[in-house]
């Protein structure tokens, strides 16, 4: 039985305690299974759903027709149902926050968020934080069980302090900062015991809960035990196995950690060892920049449309639109009093919104660039970061060195994070310029898709020597880099090339031409001049 199938059963068993799941991969089997087990109805919530469909509001068209207010009950008032968020990674943060608030207030629905994102789009952290399971459904096999007896047993399942403590220690060891997963792990362990027909949680239940709920949220990776092979039993730990022979919480936590390690996918390990913070903030902060055109910004006229989803009714214009028809309407409907307004008369306000700029710094951290003027480049970026902070622009940082390019910092407004990743910028190795340009393009595309304006700032000497396929061939590398640069120009992104080399006629200048970038040689520019150019570029782009 796959773990995801178990999670499905647990969720069906204790929907109040486990709240929901985020699914990745083909979700149909899971949903059918969950629907069958939990006996609940499903409501689909697409990312473009109107705010008023969630919260409920007055139905303007129906109200007009009937003459009495008609209210529309929102989906968040639904109880005992499954809310299926399709393409959940695209749900805007305000809607996610609404759903989260309803969950906090004890709403009786289960949230199933289907994450269909590619790249590093992900479900809003505010939701991911509040549901128990983050599941990858590859190879999901539905299970055929009956949970009626388990459901009856569940309220009577006991959990002893030793296991509670073990789970808490595990959560701490994995670097979790939120308490919520630990509480949900407790619930899951209890449900697992009930599923197995026991009224007492045992260590295996706890291990399952740790694997399913705590492991996917791990921020730090606990030190592998084989690093200290000869270590005797820790002195300060109490004697193993008290009277009843069960392990101490510490031992249990160790065992749970083992279970967690076994379930971590190999790619995650590598990421954790670098001690990267979970890049959870992207969805939350990014969605703020979305432009709606109907809700905020400077007024920009009115148009026909219904005043829903937060669009504001332009009353005067609506009346003006209705005015010419009054004699006609009065004739056809003499009993109605007052101005007769119909749906077609509605005018709503439009707004022009200032879009947010994101400066993407693509930094050449290779040996050749490092030799030259890495320190100067860092100084320039620091200045730029301070400017971005003042303007409330967002920044992203990409470094390329060795064989590949890496997003060190996804678009963020947090200056501290940007500064930190800059300070930790590794140096040395080859110059995979093509990879760097392509990575920048990817991030720039994401920014644009989220409604922002990207500006890519390259800091490099242009001396590419690693080709796209990772081989060290200077000629091929340069060709690849130029091809990538042209693609960047075709995509229409605004770019700025800061040349770290000593000559004005080097490869960086040529690249700048290929990508249509503004060119600025560093030897002739001090940090403040760079800052001024970036500012000018941003103003031009906005």
């Amino acid at each position, binding site marked *: 039985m796959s773990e995801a199938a178990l999670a499905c059963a647990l969720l069906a068993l204790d929907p109040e*305690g486990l709240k929901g799941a985020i699914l990745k991969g083909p979700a149909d089997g899971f949903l059918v299974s969950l629907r069958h087990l939990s006996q609940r109805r499903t409501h689909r919530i697409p990312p473009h759903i109107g*705010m008023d469909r969630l919260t409920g509001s*007055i139905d*303007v068209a129906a*109200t*007009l027709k009937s003459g*009495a*207010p008609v209210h529309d009950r929102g989906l968040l008032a639904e109880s005992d149902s499954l809310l299926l968020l399709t393409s959940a990674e695209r749900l805007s*943060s*305000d*809607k996610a*926050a*609404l759903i989260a608030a309803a969950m*906090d207030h*004890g709403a009786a629905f289960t949230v199933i968020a289907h994450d269909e994102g590619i790249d590093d789009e992900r479900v809003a*952290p*505010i939701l991911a*934080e509040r549901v128990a399971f983050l599941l990858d459904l590859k190879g999901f096999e539905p299970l055929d069980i009956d949970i009626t007896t388990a459901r009856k047993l569940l*309220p009577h399942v006991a959990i002893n*302090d030793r296991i509670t*403590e073990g*789970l*808490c*220690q595990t*959560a*701490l060891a994995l670097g*979790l*900062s*939120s*308490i919520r997963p*630990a*509480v949900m792990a*407790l*619930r899951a362990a209890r449900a697992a015991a009930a599923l197995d027909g026991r009224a007492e949680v045992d260590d295996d239940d706890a291990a399952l809960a740790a694997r399913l709920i705590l492991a996917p949220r791990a921020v730090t990776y606990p030190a592998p035990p084989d690093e200290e092979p000869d270590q005797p039993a820790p002195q300060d730990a109490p004697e193993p196995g008290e009277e009843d022979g069960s392990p101490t*919480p510490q031992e249990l936590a160790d065992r749970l950690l083992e279970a967690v390690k076994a379930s971590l996918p190999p790619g995650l390990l590598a990421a954790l060892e670098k001690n990267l*913070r979970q890049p959870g*903030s992207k969805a*939350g*902060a990014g969605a*703020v920049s979305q432009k709606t055109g109907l*809700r905020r910004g400077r007024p920009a006229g009115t148009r026909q449309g219904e005043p829903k989803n*937060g669009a*504001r*009714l332009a*009353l005067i214009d609506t009346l003006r639109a209705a005015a010419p028809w009054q004699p006609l309407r009065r004739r056809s409907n003499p009993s109605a*009093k*007052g*101005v007769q307004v119909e749906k077609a008369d509605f005018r709503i306000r439009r707004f022009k919104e200032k879009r947010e700029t994101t400066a993407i710094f693509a930094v050449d951290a290779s040996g050749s660039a490092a030799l030259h003027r890495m320190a100067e480049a860092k100084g320039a970026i*620091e200045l730029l970061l*301070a400017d971005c*902070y*003042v303007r*409330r622009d967002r920044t992203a940082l990409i470094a390329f060195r060795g064989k590949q390019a890496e997003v060190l910092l996804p678009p*963020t*407004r*947090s*200056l*501290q*994070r940007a*500064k930190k990743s800059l300070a930790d910028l590794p140096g040395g190795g080859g110059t995979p310029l093509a990879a760097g340009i392509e990575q920048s393009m990817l991030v720039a595309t994401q920014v644009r898709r989220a409604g922002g304006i990207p500006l890519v700032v390259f800091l490099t000497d242009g001396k590419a020597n690693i080709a796209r396929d990772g081989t060290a061939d200077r000629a091929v590398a340069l060709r690849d880099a130029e091809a990538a640069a042209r693609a960047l120009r075709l995509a229409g992104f605004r770019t700025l090339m800061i040349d770290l080399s000593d000559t004005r006629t080097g490869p960086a200048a040529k690249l700048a031409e290929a990508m249509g970038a503004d060119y600025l040689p560093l030897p002739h520019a001090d940090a403040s001049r760079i800052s001024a150019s970036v500012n000018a570029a941003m103003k031009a782009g906005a």
Partner: protein
Amino acid sequence: MSLRYPFSAISGQDELLLALLLTAVDPLIGGLLAFGDRGTGKSTAVRALAALLPEIRATTCAYHCDPDSASAQCDHCRKEATHKLRKMSIPVVDLPLGATEDRVLGSLNLERALSHGEKSFEPGLLAQANRGYLYVDEVNLLEDHIVDLLLDVAASGENVVEREGLSVRHPARIVLVGSGNPEEGELRPQLLDRFGLSVEVRTPTEVKTWVEIVKRRDAFERDPEGFTALWEKQEDQTRRRIVKARKHLNDVEVPDAILERAAALCINLKTDGLRGQLTLMRAARALAAYEGAKRVTDDHLKRMAAPSLRHRLRRNPLDETGSTTRIDRAVTEVFGA
């Protein structure tokens, strides 16, 4: 609405809880900002406060005006000689992230305009929160113009709506509580300064605390009624303490020497403007009242220095020294070791 987690049962977040209690003792402290990791009980604490707060007497209008203070009443209540009264608990209103300006300020009542052809005002969240709390989770992600608007109202105590042919002003004395995770975006410095107190909420690092929190939370979720009943006595005690402190607040003496020290502290830290010093004085006084002291002492001042001042320090965006450390240093310098 389901039962809320009892305030007294929240453990491991003492600074946050105390700051919240003090805003209940003296709403003039001017709001609270709680920044920190997710899942550390920020929202729980604010929402739990709602159940803890004592009842107030109010008129029956949409703004539940204070019958005893004519200056803080809406136009309607001010005209009436006698008021119909009711008892209500102090409101704690959630402001959802996606709230529109209309929803916050209030707007033309569309329903009545359409079905009856009447121009009437539909009160918004600010009206609901009058005399109580307005809680914004993820305040750092809220759109700037809404934040501006909230702070403006919080400072003036009045909501003025001039739109769609409406002209309405009504009292909106609110305590603004904002929370958020600074890693996801920071608040503009000019907004930071407008919050009275600020608290840094951290994840507890001790297993013992975790176990306690998890156990309590679990017990609450499994049996809300039973758990709440278990804590009712302590909730009552805290509630009585708040009521008493509110009553005695104006009797607490603030010696000149204390004011001078507060000033010295602010000068030492080079905080901009007088807001910091005023808040520090009010917070220390509220603390003294809450603890039943007759006058404010150095100790009260010291304990309130960090929450009152840490968000007002002029900051070099590239300087990473924690604000709390800088305040501790200044406290040592001013008060002597």
